[in-house]
């Protein structure tokens, strides 16, 4: 078939045209994001149920989280969302260098988030504010304060894993951008990585008030 000759290199064999490929990839990404929301949805339910059971304990326990560090991290993630959006915008207009810079900055923001999280975690671990049976801290009033830290660590821990996964994805997109795989014609992977990153960001925007700003 001679139609095949004018097929661009990025177009997979089983798609009829670039439009179909792009739309498929986008739809696939949105469906994937839906599964991610439901994954966290289970934890949000657990949070709601235990908070309803132990409202006072939740209030007392949340005071031991560092609101300043939490807020800084929120700002860091929001900024990273902006830079990833700018990176997509740049590649849409064939500005490869700009896109590379913005992706790199996004990675740096993500790393900053994890470093701050590391300090928060090690402080808590040091004090014995640990989940479940490892909880040894004594300074919190109320029933079962370890449940709060179970929820804190599983939610932020799972989110942290997502940040890490996002960094890997963005890193991969960055390498491909450097190699010149993307241009204003074809930039779907950059866009999808951006979508994923926005979701990671959005989940934190819910986690921050729910955990750090109880009451």
């Amino acid at each position, binding site marked *: 078939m001679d139609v095949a000759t004018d097929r661009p290199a990025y177009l997979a064999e089983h798609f009829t045209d670039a439009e179909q490929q792009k739309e498929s990839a986008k739809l*696939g990404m949105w*469906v994937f994001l839906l599964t991610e929301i439901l*994954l966290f949805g*289970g934890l949000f339910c*657990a949070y709601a149920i235990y908070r309803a*059971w132990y409202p006072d304990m939740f209030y007392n326990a949340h005071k031991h989280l560092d609101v300043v560090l939490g807020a800084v991290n929120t700002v860091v993630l929001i900024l990273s969302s902006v830079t990833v959006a700018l990176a997509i915008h740049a590649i849409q207009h064939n500005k490869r260098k700009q896109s590379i810079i913005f992706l790199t900055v996004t990675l740096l923001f993500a790393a900053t988030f994890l470093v701050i999280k590391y300090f928060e975690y090690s402080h808590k671990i040091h004090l014995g504010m640990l989940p479940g049976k490892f909880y040894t801290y004594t300074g919190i009033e109320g029933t*079962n304060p370890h449940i709060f830290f*179970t929820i804190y660590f599983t939610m932020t821990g799972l989110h942290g894993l997502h940040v890490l996964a996002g960094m890997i994805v963005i890193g991969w997109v960055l390498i491909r951008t450097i190699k010149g795989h993307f241009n204003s014609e074809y930039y779907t992977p950059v866009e999808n990585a951006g979508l994923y990153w926005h979701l990671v960001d959005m989940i934190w925007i819910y986690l921050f008030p729910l955990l750090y700003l109880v009451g």
Partner: protein
Amino acid sequence: MNIIPEKNYLTYPKGLKSWLFTLDHKRIGLMYLFAIMFFFLVGGIFALMIRLELFSPGKDIVSADTYNQLFTLHGAIMIFLFIIPSIPASLGNLILPLMLGAKDVAFPRLNLASWYIYVFGAMFAVYSMIAGAADTGWTFYTPYSIETNTAVISLTTGAFILGFSSIFTGLNFLVTIHKLRAPGMTWFKMPLFVWGLYATSIIQVVATPVLGITLLLLILERVAGIGIFNPALGGDPVLFQHFFWFYSHPAVYIMILPGMAIISELISVHSHKKIFGYKVIAYSSLAIAFISFLVWGHHMFVSGQSELAGMIFSFLTFFVGVPSGIKVFNWVATLYKGAVRFTTPMLYTFAFLILFSIGGLTGIFLGALSVDVHLHDTYFVVAHFHYTMMGGTVIAFFAGLHHWWPKIWGRMYNERIAKITAVLVFIGFNLTFIPQFIMGAHGMPRRYYDYLPQFQGMHELSTYGAYLLGFAFTIMAVYLIHSIFKGKPAGNNPWGGLTLEWQTTSPPDPHNFHEVPVWTHGPYDYDKIKVTPDLEKELETA
């Protein structure tokens, strides 16, 4: 004479590597088929051991602990490794893109990944068998699953990983159905098999992540003692049940909807008759998918949940029943003024209609609050879900397998033996599970290693039935494998189907179609298009 094309997806390209790294949906489907049939065999052997142990009260062949591990593994393997992937991942992968007139699924690499993830997850489950198999039941109820010193972590990790495989298949199908349909194939001109898999995929994508997080929390509970489901640490064991059934009730529709999808297809093709109520069947699949998310609490009527919750869940449960009932009536009505052929796939379709009707109707008993209190956790429940899952899904799977077998391999099995086997399966199945309804209603609890002498007669009958069933499946394996090598070439369209998979060669070309097909008619237009099945052509001309 029918001939088999020399270059087809089975023969080209050659070599083990070309299979292990294939992106062809048909090969991936076939690899899934082999994998799930292997686990059907393993799960089936466990079932036969369970039935042998229960032949008489007291110890027959194994200890109580081994028995508890056997029924756990039987359930976990049959659910997570066999039924959930059975129809979508094997037959769906093989047939769905062909039906749509597509060259492949939307994400072929993701498709291959899902197979490897399946194998990886299965390895954890197998490891669990060696390392002191879990004895929690496939439901992993807390706090028992936190306390027991058996290999719960490896089995739940296996199930967790298998979830990803299931999500990837569902995601792939959703996008494929949305974006890769042949020119001319509008939503309401899609074959009903596609509609059924579409509804299934929605549930897979929405429900499976919740199972994922539930199992993850259970694993953390065992590894790190996080206390969220552990009453000893202030957690709530009943919360686990809510989480678990939020996935696992929709999951039974992940299992049955593809079965219904196959029956919708087969009843029309083998009676050469337009399907009765196409839109109703399509919409009812979506309705079932939607309502299935709202009924999980009917597994917990005696768990101490509030009367209000019981009332709401009971009410909604009945409304899952209505669309299923409507489907059955539509299928039967399709036969009216048709040209019914008593082929092997059709015999399995009839078996499905009878067994699934029993399964569905006995579900009404369990949805009724006061009656459920009596029947909950007895053999009545065991029999009910085997009638829906095995009499429904598994029978439909075998109907579909016999229907598409000549397409997959290009060769036919021996129909006479196949029909006799179908009858044996039907008799064996009923003999196994009808006694279980009766003893369940009399109060025989499920998951019992030992039982009171009054139940012995019924248990004996059930065991005889199970072995008849095992015998019938053995024959099936023999004639199917035989046909792969020695079967008569079946022709491109052995049954006279109108959907696109029958318009390519058997077995299909590696690229499915030589030219992009255009869809000009409905999938069941037997009133407009006369198509003589290849298997009947010689007879008719004679």
